[in-house]
């Protein structure tokens, strides 16, 4: 091949990589953290911004789809695997086995509601996917408040109105409960009633049972009648959730309130009592407000859950991995540190041991990393800690091909061949060995990237792409550099 053509190919590859990586460079180094956070605004928040700002954010969002993202182990966040619990749905159908269509339909509803809730919650790059038949994988990288995100995702959203069984509630005494707040003798509760709790967040923000209340089991009205839900502040500036019922719901609600004046009505969400006002009068018009002990964010989240609707089946967390932002930052720092120190050691050794030839190999390794980053950017790849590990290992293994070539060249030189002939023979003889050797690693990493999940996948993908690029940089590029160097400097003695 013509030398100029080879130079052209190398430059072309570098240019494509640089192009791919440039977006990530702008994203991470030109924009500030505050700029980047703007892309997490929800549609409602965006609507309030001036046109110019909005366009800027639109541009940034486009940019974001072309960069290397950081995985949630690097920026903190929440990873959850959920599985629907169909038992309850079965029970509601009177113990009847669920058909395939029922299950599919429930799953579709669940996914729809989840997407709805998460979209409106506003996190960067949320991902909701299914795994296997009935597992749902949710990834929310960078969510600053994992507990809040978890509430949004996990809240069933089942709103019920029930009357308080005041007589039984009055009979409850503290010594009837164990230390976890469970009733010791359950026979106290009549068959038509059930024990529920009024929950409150403790000072650490963890929900705790505050008061035990007995409710009549009968549900008078449920959340399926809700038309709209929004957050307002009352006259004391406290947030409250206001929702409007459909006309049918409003009629029902008027009847319920009309015939139960003076009684306490509990508003129950997912089995937890939110609020239990006393009914003062018949309420028509279908506007209901829930005042409770919420913060603004909690009220917003509640309105969001009510708007998005209730899951048809309860979801169960089968796997959860929460990474705090501190740990994520630590991981990035230590990952980068290890990468830099590892690279310096390897590149330094090559330079010391193979001198100028080592320098050529070093250029190949650096180019290898650069092209790898470029390709990862083109793939809009999510870099995880294990991905960084894959890159670090790539550096160590990338020099292998050049070591094999250089050792061969040395042998050829010792046998008395000219420099050009030695280089030619070295590359020729080493090629097959390098190909065979890399193939096996490639097979192992390929299988890993196909079946593996989470950390394994990130590692396997970076390592396998790294190895493929390595074949290009360590053979094609170094050979070109040799040829150019020998022509340019009329080398008499090879520095190897």
């Amino acid at each position, binding site marked *: 091949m013509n030398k100029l053509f080879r130079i052209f190919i190398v430059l072309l590859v570098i240019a494509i990589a640089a192009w791919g990586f440039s977006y990530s460079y702008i994203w991470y180094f030109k924009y500030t953290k505050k700029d980047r956070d703007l892309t997490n605004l929800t549609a409602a928040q965006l609507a309030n911004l001036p046109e110019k700002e909005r366009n800027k954010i639109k541009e940034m969002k486009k940019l974001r789809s072309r960069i290397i993202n950081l995985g949630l182990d690097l920026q903190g966040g929440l990873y959850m695997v959920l599985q629907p619990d169909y038992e309850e749905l079965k029970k509601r159908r009177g113990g009847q086995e669920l058909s395939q269509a029922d299950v599919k339909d429930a799953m579709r509803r669940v996914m729809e509601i989840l997407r709805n809730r998460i979209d409106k919650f506003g996190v960067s790059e949320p991902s909701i996917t299914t795994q296997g038949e009935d597992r749902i994988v949710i990834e929310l990288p960078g969510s600053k408040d994992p507990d809040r995100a978890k509430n949004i995702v996990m809240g069933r959203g089942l709103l019920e109105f029930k009357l308080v069984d005041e007589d039984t509630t009055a009979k409850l005494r503290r010594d009837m409960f164990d230390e976890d707040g469970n009733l010791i003798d359950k026979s106290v509760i009549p068959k038509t009633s059930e024990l529920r709790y009024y929950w409150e967040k403790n000072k650490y923000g963890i929900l705790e049972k505050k008061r035990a209340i007995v409710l009549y089991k009968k549900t008078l009205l449920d959340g399926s009648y809700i038309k709209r839900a929004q957050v307002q502040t009352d006259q004391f500036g406290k947030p409250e959730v206001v929702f409007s019922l459909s006309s049918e719901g409003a009629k029902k609600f008027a009847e319920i309130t009309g015939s139960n004046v003076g009684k306490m009505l509990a508003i129950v969400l997912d089995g937890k009592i939110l609020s239990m006002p006393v009914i003062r009068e018949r309420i028509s018009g279908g506007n209901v407000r829930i005042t409770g002990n919420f913060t603004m964010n909690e009220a917003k989240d509640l309105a969001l859950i009510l708007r998005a609707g209730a899951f048809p089946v309860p979801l169960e967390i089968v796997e959860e991995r929460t990474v705090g932002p501190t740990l994520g930052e630590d991981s990035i720092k230590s990952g980068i540190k290890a990468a830099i120190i590892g690279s310096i050691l390897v590149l330094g050794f090559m330079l010391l041991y193979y001198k100028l030839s080592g320098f050529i190999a070093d250029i190949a390794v650096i180019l290898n990393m650069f092209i790898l980053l470029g390709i990862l950017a083109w793939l809009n790849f999510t870099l995880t800690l294990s991905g960084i590990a894959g890159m670090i290992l790539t550096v160590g293994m990338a020099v292998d091909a050049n070591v094999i070539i250089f*050792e061969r060249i040395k042998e050829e030189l010792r046998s008395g061949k000219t420099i050009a002939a030695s280089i030619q023979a070295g590359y020729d003889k080493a090629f097959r060995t390098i190909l065979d050797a890399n193939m096996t690693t490639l097979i192992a990493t390929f299988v890993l990237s196909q079946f593996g999940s989470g950390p394994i996948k990130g590692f396997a993908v970076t390592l396998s792409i790294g190895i493929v690029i390595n074949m290009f940089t360590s053979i094609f590029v170094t050979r070109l550099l040799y040829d150019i160097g020998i022509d340019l400097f009329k080398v008499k003695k090879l520095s190897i």
Partner: protein
Amino acid sequence: MFHNLKLKIIQYRKFTYILSLAIIISGLVNIAVHRGLKMGIDFAGGNMLQVEVKDENIGIKDIREILLSTGYGNNVQKVDDPKRNIFILKTKALPKDNEKVINKIKKALFDKLGAQNVEILSVNVVGPRISKYLLRTSYIIGIVAIGLILLYTTFRFKFRFGVAAIIALVHDVLVVLSFISFFGKEMDTYILAAILTIIGYSLNDTIVVFDRARENLRSTKAYDEYELTFNKSINQSLSRTIITSFTTLLSLFALYFFGGLILRNFAFAIIVGVIAGTYSSIFVASAIVVDWHRIKPEKMKKI
């Protein structure tokens, strides 16, 4: 540095066979005594909290007591970090409602140590269904990977070379598992990734030596030169084997010492694997091919 070496490597194979067997057998005994490898929560299921305590005076005993008070066992480890006070708390997974377990432990920690002194670095919950699924996928990954590699090596080399390479590979994996057991490390998805990387690396090393042997054998005519040819091939590729292992180890040690907690065990497993892989490509794989030839000679090409 290593040219014109004439080390009688193959001749020492009796000694190296014994050494390999000694490590693997004691490793397997150790694994058997502990009733299998220690499984991390990925494969066994469980709850795990990683917690940083800002008060230096709080030690592992205090944390263990707090965990005991919640009724969820006493499995606490202190993370080996001189600058920071980090603990890992583990409990078994309940079939449902692990949230409750986590919240109870969090509250106990906040109550006893003060919320401002405790930072929850990470929470991991792996339910029993997921751990079973992960374990099953891991077996599939392992079997498929080994199957494909076997296919490739038999396709590229003679059958006996392929078998020797696979024995060397199994040797390396067993050595790594032995060391994981010796050092009381836990199996998790990272270690699984490490083991598969080792499989790739081990073969890589073996193949480089075999490639050289194949080349040299073409000009070998006599039966008794077989051993000498192998010895020559090993000596010729020794520089490369040692230098590549060395650079790989350089980057792995950087990962081990600076890559942070999560990657430390991963780096540990690959370090052991790279050393074992380098050793086995010379002393196990090549030695087996030579012995195979001694018992059942390969037909030499007449030139």
